[in-house]
């Protein structure tokens, strides 16, 4: 089984002698590692956002560059290139996928 590169980095840090009682990854650390790379955000409803993560705060409000907004209406995905740096309110952020490319990505094609 292949390990996701972001997880592998964390495990390597543990093996280098950094005191860690467990091999577990802190969620906010993983978000921190994703700064500078593309993230795919799934919101509470049917909205998704893809952008380059510039930073975040304790509430996981996000600053994303070159943001693209995807909304799903009746099974149709509507893509809107915002082409801007946005501040995304963390209130309705449900899932973050570091390195994710969005719903159009072939990896996200429905697999049963």
């Amino acid at each position, binding site marked *: 089984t292949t390990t996701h590169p972001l*997880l592998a980095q964390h495990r390597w840090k543990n093996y280098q002698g950094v005191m860690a009682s*467990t091999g577990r990854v*802190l*969620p*906010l650390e993983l978000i921190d590692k994703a700064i500078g790379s593309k993230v795919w955000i799934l919101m509470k*409803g049917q909205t998704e956002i893809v952008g380059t993560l510039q930073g975040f705060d304790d509430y996981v409000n996000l600053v994303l560059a070159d943001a693209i907004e995807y909304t799903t209406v009746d099974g149709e995905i509507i893509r809107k290139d915002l082409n801007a740096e946005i501040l995304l309110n963390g209130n309705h952020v449900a899932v973050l996928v570091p390195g994710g490319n969005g719903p159009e990505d072939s*990896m*996200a094609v429905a697999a049963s």
Partner: protein
Amino acid sequence: QTTQSAPATSIASRELRLLIFDNRLDKQRQRLNNMSSNKSGHPASKKKESILALDKMIDGKIRVKCLGGRELKGTLRGFDELVNLVLDDCEEFLRDPNDPNSITDNTRKLGLVVCRGTQVSLISPEDGMEEIANPFLGDDE
């Protein structure tokens, strides 16, 4: 495996109650150890204890229900006290486009994800659930 005497109780909630009970036993043992070794209790430095021992589910497969109706399944790699989760090989269950409240067995792959604790409504072991016949239907007579 469901018993006739407890039709409304799903296997998932039973397993969760076992985990919670286990956690409480651990805390009682800790308190007993502290008492016997004559340590003074430090109420000021008391860390908030979760009622759900997620560290027992690390590297296990879990199913997460989110507030907006999203359902995910994946391998738990990490968490924090706010119940933010790190899920590996995560898949999202797809919903019927006509009926956003329905849930199908079709999934789409997400990969390594962070799930926000503020949006989590339920966590259960992936194989801790079984669909049973509706136990309430007989009451209509």
